[in-house]
Protein backbone atom coordinates (compact mmCIF):
# COMPACT_ATOMS: atom_id res chain seq x y z
CA UNK A 1 0.00 0.00 0.00
CA UNK A 2 1.15 3.50 -0.77
CA UNK A 3 1.85 6.39 1.60
CA UNK A 4 -1.18 8.46 0.55
CA UNK A 5 -3.64 5.65 1.25
CA UNK A 6 -2.07 5.20 4.69
CA UNK A 7 -2.16 8.94 5.40
CA UNK A 8 1.64 8.96 5.69
CA UNK A 9 2.56 11.54 3.01
CA UNK A 10 3.11 14.15 5.73
CA UNK A 11 5.19 11.84 7.94
CA UNK A 12 8.99 12.25 8.06
CA UNK A 13 9.44 9.24 5.77
CA UNK A 14 6.77 10.58 3.41
CA UNK A 15 8.45 13.98 3.23
CA UNK A 16 11.84 12.34 2.62
CA UNK A 17 10.58 10.03 -0.13
CA UNK A 18 8.81 13.00 -1.77
CA UNK A 19 12.14 14.83 -1.76
CA UNK A 20 13.77 11.85 -3.52
CA UNK A 21 10.97 11.60 -6.10
CA UNK A 22 11.31 15.35 -6.67
CA UNK A 23 15.04 14.93 -7.22
CA UNK A 24 14.34 12.43 -9.99
CA UNK A 25 11.71 14.79 -11.43
CA UNK A 26 14.14 17.73 -11.56
CA UNK A 27 16.92 15.56 -12.97
CA UNK A 28 14.89 14.33 -15.93
CA UNK A 29 13.41 17.76 -16.68
CA UNK A 30 16.92 19.22 -16.84
CA UNK A 31 18.27 16.31 -18.95
CA UNK A 32 15.45 16.99 -21.44
CA UNK A 33 16.59 20.61 -21.76
CA UNK A 34 13.74 22.08 -19.75
CA UNK A 35 16.05 24.25 -17.67
CA UNK A 36 15.93 26.58 -20.69
CA UNK A 37 12.94 28.83 -21.36
CA UNK A 38 13.96 29.30 -25.00
CA UNK A 39 13.93 25.53 -25.47
CA UNK A 40 10.53 25.28 -23.76
CA UNK A 41 8.90 28.04 -25.82
CA UNK A 42 10.37 26.86 -29.13
CA UNK A 43 7.36 24.56 -29.60
CA UNK A 44 5.10 27.62 -29.95
CA UNK A 45 7.12 28.69 -33.00
CA UNK A 46 7.14 25.11 -34.38
CA UNK A 47 10.95 24.92 -34.09
CA UNK A 48 11.48 22.22 -31.47
CA UNK A 49 8.82 19.79 -30.26
CA UNK A 50 10.81 18.44 -27.30
CA UNK A 51 8.04 19.58 -24.93
CA UNK A 52 5.46 17.50 -26.77
CA UNK A 53 7.78 14.49 -27.16
CA UNK A 54 8.90 14.43 -23.52
CA UNK A 55 5.41 15.00 -22.12
CA UNK A 56 3.74 12.38 -24.29
CA UNK A 57 6.55 9.85 -23.73
CA UNK A 58 6.34 10.37 -19.95
CA UNK A 59 2.55 10.21 -19.87
CA UNK A 60 2.42 7.04 -21.97
CA UNK A 61 5.20 5.32 -19.98
CA UNK A 62 3.45 6.02 -16.68
CA UNK A 63 -0.05 5.26 -18.04
CA UNK A 64 0.97 1.87 -19.48
CA UNK A 65 2.92 1.05 -16.31
CA UNK A 66 0.04 1.99 -14.03
CA UNK A 67 -2.55 0.09 -16.05
CA UNK A 68 -0.29 -2.98 -16.25
CA UNK A 69 0.43 -2.94 -12.50
CA UNK A 70 -3.26 -2.40 -11.85
CA UNK A 71 -4.39 -5.24 -14.13
CA UNK A 72 -1.84 -7.62 -12.57
CA UNK A 73 -3.08 -6.71 -9.10
CA UNK A 74 0.17 -5.13 -7.87
CA UNK A 75 -1.32 -1.65 -7.47
CA UNK A 76 -4.87 -0.75 -6.47
CA UNK A 77 -5.50 2.17 -8.83
CA UNK A 78 -8.49 3.25 -6.73
CA UNK A 79 -6.14 3.89 -3.78
CA UNK A 80 -4.19 6.58 -5.66
CA UNK A 81 -4.76 10.29 -5.33
CA UNK A 82 -5.72 11.87 -8.65
CA UNK A 83 -6.75 15.49 -9.08
CA UNK A 84 -10.50 15.83 -9.48
CA UNK A 85 -11.78 16.57 -12.99
CA UNK A 86 -13.88 19.74 -12.94
CA UNK A 87 -14.50 20.89 -16.49
CA UNK A 88 -14.99 24.67 -16.43
CA UNK A 89 -12.33 25.78 -13.93
CA UNK A 90 -9.87 23.45 -15.64
CA UNK A 91 -10.67 24.93 -19.05
CA UNK A 92 -10.34 28.51 -17.77
CA UNK A 93 -7.32 27.63 -15.63
CA UNK A 94 -5.65 26.00 -18.62
CA UNK A 95 -6.20 29.08 -20.80
CA UNK A 96 -4.82 31.47 -18.16
CA UNK A 97 -1.94 29.11 -17.44
CA UNK A 98 -1.06 28.83 -21.13
CA UNK A 99 -0.80 32.63 -21.47
CA UNK A 100 1.53 32.66 -18.48
CA UNK A 101 3.58 29.80 -19.91
CA UNK A 102 4.44 31.50 -23.21
CA UNK A 103 4.78 35.03 -21.75
CA UNK A 104 6.86 33.90 -18.77
CA UNK A 105 8.73 31.10 -20.53
CA UNK A 106 8.31 28.56 -17.75
CA UNK A 107 5.85 26.40 -15.93
CA UNK A 108 6.23 25.87 -12.16
CA UNK A 109 8.29 22.65 -12.30
CA UNK A 110 10.59 23.75 -15.11
CA UNK A 111 11.08 27.15 -13.44
CA UNK A 112 12.52 25.30 -10.43
CA UNK A 113 14.99 23.59 -12.75
CA UNK A 114 15.73 26.92 -14.49
CA UNK A 115 16.40 28.55 -11.13
CA UNK A 116 18.70 25.67 -10.18
CA UNK A 117 20.56 26.33 -13.46
CA UNK A 118 21.06 29.99 -12.57
CA UNK A 119 18.31 31.63 -14.64
CA UNK A 120 17.19 34.87 -12.99
CA UNK A 121 14.03 34.98 -15.12
CA UNK A 122 13.02 31.64 -13.56
CA UNK A 123 13.37 33.14 -10.07
CA UNK A 124 11.16 36.08 -11.08
CA UNK A 125 8.64 33.70 -12.66
CA UNK A 126 8.45 31.70 -9.41
CA UNK A 127 7.97 34.92 -7.46
CA UNK A 128 5.11 35.76 -9.83
CA UNK A 129 3.63 32.27 -9.41
CA UNK A 130 3.65 32.72 -5.64
CA UNK A 131 1.94 36.09 -5.96
CA UNK A 132 -0.59 34.57 -8.39
CA UNK A 133 -1.39 31.76 -5.93
CA UNK A 134 -2.05 34.30 -3.18
CA UNK A 135 -4.12 36.43 -5.56
CA UNK A 136 -6.26 33.38 -6.29
CA UNK A 137 -6.70 32.77 -2.56
CA UNK A 138 -7.91 36.37 -2.27
CA UNK A 139 -10.50 36.00 -5.04
CA UNK A 140 -11.56 32.43 -4.24
CA UNK A 141 -14.38 33.41 -1.82
CA UNK A 142 -15.91 35.54 -4.60
CA UNK A 143 -15.85 32.84 -7.26
CA UNK A 144 -18.91 31.10 -5.86
CA UNK A 145 -19.95 27.90 -7.59
CA UNK A 146 -17.69 28.37 -10.58
CA UNK A 147 -14.89 26.27 -9.06
CA UNK A 148 -17.27 23.30 -8.97
CA UNK A 149 -18.88 23.93 -12.36
CA UNK A 150 -18.86 21.09 -14.85
CA UNK A 151 -18.41 18.07 -12.63
CA UNK A 152 -20.23 16.19 -15.40
CA UNK A 153 -16.79 15.55 -16.87
CA UNK A 154 -15.66 13.89 -13.65
CA UNK A 155 -13.51 10.80 -13.80
CA UNK A 156 -11.26 9.30 -16.42
CA UNK A 157 -11.74 9.58 -20.15
CA UNK A 158 -11.87 5.78 -20.71
CA UNK A 159 -14.69 5.67 -18.14
CA UNK A 160 -16.57 8.40 -20.01
CA UNK A 161 -16.09 6.54 -23.30
CA UNK A 162 -17.03 3.19 -21.79
CA UNK A 163 -13.71 1.43 -22.36
CA UNK A 164 -11.28 -0.15 -19.88
CA UNK A 165 -8.24 1.64 -18.45
CA UNK A 166 -5.69 -0.52 -20.33
CA UNK A 167 -7.50 0.17 -23.62
CA UNK A 168 -7.38 3.88 -22.77
CA UNK A 169 -3.63 3.73 -22.13
CA UNK A 170 -3.06 1.92 -25.44
CA UNK A 171 -5.16 4.55 -27.22
CA UNK A 172 -2.98 7.23 -25.63
CA UNK A 173 0.09 5.39 -26.98
CA UNK A 174 -1.36 5.44 -30.51
CA UNK A 175 -2.12 9.18 -30.26
CA UNK A 176 1.40 9.82 -28.93
CA UNK A 177 3.08 7.86 -31.75
CA UNK A 178 1.05 9.82 -34.33
CA UNK A 179 2.04 13.08 -32.60
CA UNK A 180 5.74 12.07 -32.63
CA UNK A 181 5.62 11.43 -36.40
CA UNK A 182 3.75 14.67 -37.09
CA UNK A 183 6.00 16.77 -34.84
CA UNK A 184 9.18 15.41 -36.42
CA UNK A 185 7.82 16.20 -39.91
CA UNK A 186 7.01 19.79 -38.92
CA UNK A 187 10.49 20.20 -37.36
CA UNK A 188 12.10 19.05 -40.64
CA UNK A 189 9.99 21.40 -42.77
CA UNK A 190 10.69 24.38 -40.50
CA UNK A 191 14.46 23.80 -40.35
CA UNK A 192 14.63 23.54 -44.16
CA UNK A 193 12.62 26.69 -44.64
CA UNK A 194 14.57 28.70 -42.10
CA UNK A 195 17.86 27.03 -41.13
CA UNK A 196 19.38 28.23 -37.86
Amino acid at each position, binding site marked *: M*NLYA*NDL*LGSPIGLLL*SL*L*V*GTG*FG*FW*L*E*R*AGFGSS*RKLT*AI*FYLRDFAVLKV*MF*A*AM*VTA*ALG*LQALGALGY*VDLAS*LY*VPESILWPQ*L*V*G*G*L*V*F*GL*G*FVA*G*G*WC*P*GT*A*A*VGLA*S*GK*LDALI*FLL*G*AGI*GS*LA*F*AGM*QPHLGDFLHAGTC*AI*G*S*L*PERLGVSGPVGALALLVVALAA*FVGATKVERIMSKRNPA
Partner: protein
Amino acid sequence: MQKPYWNPYVAGAGLGLTLLVSYVVLGTGLGASGGITRIATSAAHAIAPAAVEHNAYLGGYFADGNPLAYYLVTMFAGTLLGGFLSAFAAGRTGLQIERGPTAAPGLRLVLALLGGALAGIGARFALGCTSGQALSGGAMLQTGSFVFTGACFAAAFALAPLVRQEWR
Protein backbone atom coordinates in the same frame (compact mmCIF):
# COMPACT_ATOMS: atom_id res chain seq x y z
CA MET B 1 31.60 23.24 -22.33
CA GLN B 2 27.91 22.34 -22.24
CA LYS B 3 26.97 18.77 -22.97
CA PRO B 4 24.03 18.15 -25.34
CA TYR B 5 20.56 17.47 -23.95
CA TRP B 6 19.43 13.88 -23.88
CA ASN B 7 17.12 12.41 -26.51
CA PRO B 8 13.58 13.61 -25.72
CA TYR B 9 12.11 10.09 -25.85
CA VAL B 10 14.76 8.81 -23.41
CA ALA B 11 14.23 11.78 -21.06
CA GLY B 12 10.47 11.35 -21.40
CA ALA B 13 10.66 7.65 -20.51
CA GLY B 14 12.85 8.49 -17.50
CA LEU B 15 10.38 11.15 -16.42
CA GLY B 16 7.52 8.67 -16.90
CA LEU B 17 9.25 6.05 -14.74
CA THR B 18 9.77 8.69 -12.04
CA LEU B 19 6.06 9.48 -12.23
CA LEU B 20 5.25 5.76 -12.01
CA VAL B 21 7.44 5.38 -8.92
CA SER B 22 5.72 8.42 -7.41
CA TYR B 23 2.30 6.84 -7.89
CA VAL B 24 3.36 3.41 -6.61
CA VAL B 25 5.36 4.58 -3.58
CA LEU B 26 3.77 7.90 -2.62
CA GLY B 27 0.32 7.09 -3.96
CA THR B 28 0.17 10.37 -5.83
CA GLY B 29 1.76 11.93 -8.90
CA LEU B 30 4.27 14.73 -9.36
CA GLY B 31 3.48 18.35 -8.51
CA ALA B 32 5.12 21.75 -8.46
CA SER B 33 2.56 24.55 -8.12
CA GLY B 34 1.22 23.21 -4.82
CA GLY B 35 4.64 23.53 -3.22
CA ILE B 36 5.00 27.09 -4.54
CA THR B 37 1.58 28.00 -3.09
CA ARG B 38 2.65 26.66 0.32
CA ILE B 39 5.96 28.56 0.26
CA ALA B 40 4.20 31.78 -0.80
CA THR B 41 1.61 31.27 1.96
CA SER B 42 4.35 30.82 4.52
CA ALA B 43 6.08 34.01 3.36
CA ALA B 44 2.80 35.95 3.44
CA HIS B 45 2.11 34.57 6.90
CA ALA B 46 5.34 36.09 8.18
CA ILE B 47 4.05 39.51 7.09
CA ALA B 48 0.32 39.29 7.82
CA PRO B 49 -0.41 36.23 9.99
CA ALA B 50 -4.03 36.99 10.85
CA ALA B 51 -5.11 37.75 7.27
CA VAL B 52 -3.55 34.53 5.97
CA GLU B 53 -4.95 32.32 8.73
CA HIS B 54 -8.44 33.75 8.24
CA ASN B 55 -8.39 33.29 4.46
CA ALA B 56 -10.83 30.55 3.46
CA TYR B 57 -8.44 29.03 0.93
CA LEU B 58 -5.14 29.24 2.84
CA GLY B 59 -6.32 28.88 6.44
CA GLY B 60 -6.48 25.10 6.21
CA TYR B 61 -2.74 24.91 5.57
CA PHE B 62 -2.22 25.82 9.22
CA ALA B 63 -4.51 23.12 10.59
CA ASP B 64 -1.57 20.73 11.00
CA GLY B 65 0.81 23.45 12.13
CA ASN B 66 3.49 24.43 9.63
CA PRO B 67 2.25 24.76 6.01
CA LEU B 68 5.74 23.82 4.83
CA ALA B 69 5.59 20.35 6.44
CA TYR B 70 3.89 19.05 3.29
CA TYR B 71 5.00 16.51 0.69
CA LEU B 72 4.75 18.94 -2.24
CA VAL B 73 7.13 21.35 -0.49
CA THR B 74 9.87 18.72 -0.08
CA MET B 75 9.15 17.50 -3.62
CA PHE B 76 9.74 21.06 -4.84
CA ALA B 77 13.01 21.19 -2.90
CA GLY B 78 13.94 17.88 -4.55
CA THR B 79 13.11 19.30 -7.99
CA LEU B 80 15.55 22.16 -7.34
CA LEU B 81 18.19 19.67 -6.15
CA GLY B 82 17.74 17.25 -9.06
CA GLY B 83 17.75 20.10 -11.55
CA PHE B 84 20.95 21.48 -10.08
CA LEU B 85 22.73 18.10 -10.03
CA SER B 86 21.88 17.47 -13.67
CA ALA B 87 22.72 21.01 -14.83
CA PHE B 88 25.99 21.02 -12.90
CA ALA B 89 27.07 17.62 -14.25
CA ALA B 90 26.38 18.84 -17.80
CA GLY B 91 28.10 22.21 -17.38
CA ARG B 92 24.81 24.06 -17.83
CA THR B 93 24.85 26.26 -14.72
CA GLY B 94 25.51 30.01 -14.86
CA LEU B 95 23.79 33.24 -13.91
CA GLN B 96 21.83 34.77 -16.76
CA ILE B 97 18.52 36.26 -17.89
CA GLU B 98 17.56 33.89 -20.66
CA ARG B 99 16.00 35.64 -23.68
CA GLY B 100 16.04 35.91 -27.47
CA PRO B 101 18.93 37.74 -29.21
CA THR B 102 17.00 41.02 -29.58
CA ALA B 103 14.93 40.93 -26.38
CA ALA B 104 15.39 43.60 -23.68
CA PRO B 105 16.29 42.07 -20.29
CA GLY B 106 14.02 44.45 -18.37
CA LEU B 107 10.94 43.58 -20.42
CA ARG B 108 11.88 39.90 -20.19
CA LEU B 109 11.77 40.07 -16.39
CA VAL B 110 8.48 42.01 -16.35
CA LEU B 111 6.92 39.35 -18.60
CA ALA B 112 8.41 36.60 -16.41
CA LEU B 113 6.70 38.13 -13.35
CA LEU B 114 3.41 38.62 -15.19
CA GLY B 115 3.59 35.16 -16.76
CA GLY B 116 4.37 33.60 -13.41
CA ALA B 117 1.36 35.32 -11.85
CA LEU B 118 -0.95 34.06 -14.63
CA ALA B 119 0.47 30.55 -14.30
CA GLY B 120 0.01 30.71 -10.51
CA ILE B 121 -3.62 31.79 -10.83
CA GLY B 122 -4.38 29.32 -13.62
CA ALA B 123 -2.89 26.40 -11.70
CA ARG B 124 -5.09 27.12 -8.67
CA PHE B 125 -8.21 27.31 -10.85
CA ALA B 126 -7.32 23.98 -12.42
CA LEU B 127 -6.17 22.18 -9.23
CA GLY B 128 -2.66 21.73 -10.65
CA CYS B 129 -0.16 22.79 -13.28
CA THR B 130 1.64 21.03 -16.11
CA SER B 131 3.08 18.60 -13.51
CA GLY B 132 0.14 17.79 -11.28
CA GLN B 133 -2.66 18.23 -13.78
CA ALA B 134 -1.31 17.69 -17.34
CA LEU B 135 1.34 15.04 -16.65
CA SER B 136 0.13 13.24 -13.51
CA GLY B 137 -3.58 13.47 -14.26
CA GLY B 138 -2.94 12.64 -17.91
CA ALA B 139 -1.11 9.45 -16.92
CA MET B 140 -4.25 8.45 -15.01
CA LEU B 141 -6.26 9.37 -18.14
CA GLN B 142 -8.30 12.04 -16.35
CA THR B 143 -10.78 13.96 -18.50
CA GLY B 144 -10.06 17.29 -16.80
CA SER B 145 -6.31 16.85 -17.33
CA PHE B 146 -6.77 16.58 -21.09
CA VAL B 147 -9.08 19.62 -21.05
CA PHE B 148 -6.46 21.58 -19.08
CA THR B 149 -3.61 20.53 -21.38
CA GLY B 150 -5.54 21.36 -24.54
CA ALA B 151 -6.58 24.78 -23.20
CA CYS B 152 -3.04 25.53 -22.04
CA PHE B 153 -1.43 24.84 -25.40
CA ALA B 154 -4.22 26.57 -27.36
CA ALA B 155 -3.79 29.77 -25.34
CA ALA B 156 0.01 29.62 -25.54
CA PHE B 157 -0.01 29.14 -29.33
CA ALA B 158 -2.48 32.05 -29.66
CA LEU B 159 -0.35 34.47 -27.65
CA ALA B 160 3.01 33.26 -29.05
CA PRO B 161 3.15 35.61 -32.10
CA LEU B 162 2.78 38.66 -29.82
CA VAL B 163 5.75 37.71 -27.61
CA ARG B 164 7.90 36.30 -30.41
CA GLN B 165 10.68 38.85 -29.91
CA GLU B 166 11.14 37.65 -26.35
CA TRP B 167 12.33 34.25 -27.61
CA ARG B 168 13.37 34.12 -31.30
